[in-house]
């Protein structure tokens, strides 16, 4: 197997009290990668106790249903811990994936990072 177990898949930056997360991968498709991305996202809530998380999709060209599953779980974790998850900078092709699955109504999706940050105010 060609897994790269602990390679960072996320770039994390703190802006004020919001944790802004960028994805390293342009294609969030591969099952192994998604597993690792999921673990690293969940750690933000479970281990690091982050409450306000803004996921920035500007680097992301592809997203599969398995990745959507991880985002749903992350959203639940954030809500359960009294936090909030916001998604931003989703390109139209990827936005369509959210719309088809009606997850555009489930997630808080904002146009860009600026508007995304304001959603926590």
């Amino acid at each position, binding site marked *: 197997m060609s897994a790269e177990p602990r390679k960072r898949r996320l770039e994390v930056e703190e802006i004020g009290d919001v944790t802004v997360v960028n994805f390293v991968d342009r294609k969030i498709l*591969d*099952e192994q990668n998604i597993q690792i991305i999921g673990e690293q996202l969940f750690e933000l809530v479970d281990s690091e106790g982050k409450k306000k998380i803004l996921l920035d999709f500007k680097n992301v060209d*592809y997203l599969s*249903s398995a990745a959507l599953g991880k985002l749903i779980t992350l959203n639940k974790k954030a809500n359960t811990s009294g936090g909030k998850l916001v998604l931003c900078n989703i390109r139209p092709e990827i936005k369509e994936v959210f719309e*088809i699955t*009606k997850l555009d109504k489930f997630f808080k999706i904002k146009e860009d990072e600026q508007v995304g940050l304001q959603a926590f105010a």
Partner: protein
Amino acid sequence: MSDFETSALEITIPSDTSEARRVQDVLEHGLQNLKAPDKDVFCIRLALEEALVNAIKHGNQMEITKKVIIKYTLDADVFEIMISDEGPGFDPNDVPDPTDIENLERPCGRGLMLMRHYMTEVNYNSVGNSVRMKKVFKKA
């Protein structure tokens, strides 16, 4: 035997997602060489990912010794593919609608829906362990 089956190219892979990725790269490269529209390449790539993961994970239960057989044809205006696994199959009609309010928070069950949206045709065999998908390219 149908035209598709006589003219299709065939690739057999073990139940390994990194092998599936290699197949996707080969097919994406072929589509780009044919100058298939970017939007259609996007659709095919997504549908392929979902179908291959279904075959490897749900069909073959990630058992590396079980094979996934991929047959495909690439033409200037249409792409057709059949992906078969060694699993017992499933009834696509039994998959709950992931957009129903009670299923919306379930983390799985959206792959088939995306395949149907992104491809022109998606059909399973009667056993449910082989899916055939067709994408007719949009004219520029």
